[in-house]
């Protein structure tokens, strides 16, 4: 596979940054949103704003290795409390596609969306799913990846920080912030277990921001070759 796509917009969030504004979600939904859904809504807003596209019009791929673990942890506690009564609000928000669903509802976006998981290969597989979608459906697609901080009741000793990143990819316009090409890596690049499973997504955001030709290891036997794109003096004229 050597599909090459243009990155039209990027978004990133990591621990230490301001609390995710998640402005695409209506206030009521935002107030109840999990850390994962809030982070994803935030980076989707950043990436679509940077790309100058309406998030309501894009198909999307959401990637997370572990999904809604804060919500799952709350359900486990309820399960083992007296009465084993689960909160219906928590239960419906525990599915892996919660962020995708809440954004589709908030934006009235009925287009294709999927939610995948692949451990430390999640970023590579999300980008493959998205580029394969574009190959059959030329245009733009949103890719957003995130994992929450580990929950200590199931992941004692794990200490990575939460992070999220998003990309608006395009295979028709011929321009953008950078061109990326997914390629098999010579080495598998064993991911550190101390690392957020989606860390490669933020590394890719940084590489694109740096505007230099570089390779970003995505794990799972894949890498992304990043080539900066010369910005025309008056980019608006080329739209």
């Amino acid at each position, binding site marked *: *596979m050597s*599909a090459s796509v243009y990155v039209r917009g990027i978004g990133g969030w990591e621990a230490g940054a301001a609390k995710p504004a998640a402005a695409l979600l209506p206030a009521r939904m935002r107030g109840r949103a999990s850390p994962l859904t809030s982070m994803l809504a935030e980076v989707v807003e950043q990436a679509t704003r940077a790309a100058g596209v309406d998030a309501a019009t894009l198909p999307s791929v959401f990637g997370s*290795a*572990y*999904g809604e673990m804060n919500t*799952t942890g709350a*359900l*486990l506690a309820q*399960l*083992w409390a007296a009465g*084993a*009564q*689960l*909160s*219906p609000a928590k*239960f*419906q*928000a*525990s*599915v*892996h*596609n*919660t962020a*995708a*669903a*809440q954004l*589709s*509802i908030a*934006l*009235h*976006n*009925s*287009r*294709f*969306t*999927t*939610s*995948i*998981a*692949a*451990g430390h*290969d*999640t970023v*590579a*597989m999300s980008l*493959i*799913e998205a*580029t*394969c*979608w574009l*190959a*059959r459906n030329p245009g733009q697609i949103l890719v957003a990846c995130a994992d929450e901080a*580990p929950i200590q*009741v*199931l*992941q*004692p000793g*794990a200490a990575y920080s939460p992070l999220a990143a998003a990309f608006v990819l395009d295979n028709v316009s011929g321009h953008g912030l950078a061109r990326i090409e997914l390629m098999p890596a010579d080495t598998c690049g064993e991911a550190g*277990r101390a690392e957020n499973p989606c860390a490669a997504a933020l590394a890719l955001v940084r590489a694109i921001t740096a505007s230099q030709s570089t390779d970003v290891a995505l794990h*799972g036997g894949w890498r992304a070759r990043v080539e900066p794109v010369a910005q025309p003096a008056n980019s608006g004229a080329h739209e």
Partner: protein
Amino acid sequence: MGRAVKATQGYAISAYTGACALGATREQVLAALYGGQSGLALSQFAEPLQTALGAVPGPLPELPAKLRSFDTRLARLAVLLSEPLQPQLSAAIARYGASRVGIVVASSTGGLSASEQAFGAGTLPADYSFERSHAFYALVEVLRGLTGARGPGYVVSTACSSANKVFGSAQRLLSSGVVDAVLVGGIDTLCQITVRGFHSLGILSARPCRPFASDRDGTSIGEGGALLLIERAGEAAVLLCGVGECSDAHHMTQPAPDGSGAAAAMRFALADAGLDPSEIDHVNAHGTGTPLNDIAEARAIDAVLGRGVPVVSTKGATGHMLGAAAAIEALFAIAAIERGQLPPSLGCAPRDPEIQLAISAEPRAHACRYVISNALAFGGSNASVIFGAAS
């Protein structure tokens, strides 16, 4: 003037198997399904709740020594399901190379039942590992270890539509040239949180579920799954012809009442397969037995395909297998094509008078060239898949 019969277009489904409450092998499952049996039985699993559940019968095979650290019920189901496909998988790996055979499987529970037990123990048991016992990707790692496939691998998890969406992923990976074959399917296990969670939403029946019946009052949860090998080319009686995926953009747990989302997924699948609605011979409905799902889906089927096409929900036999539901239902769609016979829609009588579709509680002889299978999920995630006879 007769229309020339066009050749069926699609990817070869060269091997498939399934296990659910009806049995632990494909032969057992199909014999029980067509024999009108239900695998649902009243259970104390989630006491004090009274409900009917569909558990896979019998002891499950153990993991081989090299994969023992992945031991969960989910992983054991993966052993059960991958074994019968191994001859065709090995042939595909020999033909294309291990890195050209991908794995895209669905699950909504992953290893959640292992985490439920580990959490309840107070301190995590020594053999519990979050990455190997709980995380979705463990399923891919186990299937890689069992089968030898080394191509791209991931889990699709969009609640109850997951196992139809893996067919969309497989189509994309094949047509983009990333792989030459894909092992697809889905596996879920019974969990306290899913059973009690459906109850908390008021959509779990106390009895075996009765899709499309006038007095239906909720679904029943089942477990199990199915695996299918899809190849770019090859010998197969049935082909993967089209996939449609979209969102309701309406509500987290309720379908758009007019069924517009489900209708759109079916129309996308028809367009993808290049078929006219009149060419669909049978619908394996999502048909969960909840009041809202069944009426909305019936409206969608009526709007897209009309009232004449025979419709079946097999959830009265298997229970709702959530992230794996569409995997076992793909097996049933394929069986309908191969046998020229439709399974019964258990529990559908007396039928809801508002649901004017061709639904029958009896098995029916009915030649099928194209069958559509629907899956509709939390978050308004809709996916429809069309299977077709190769000749």
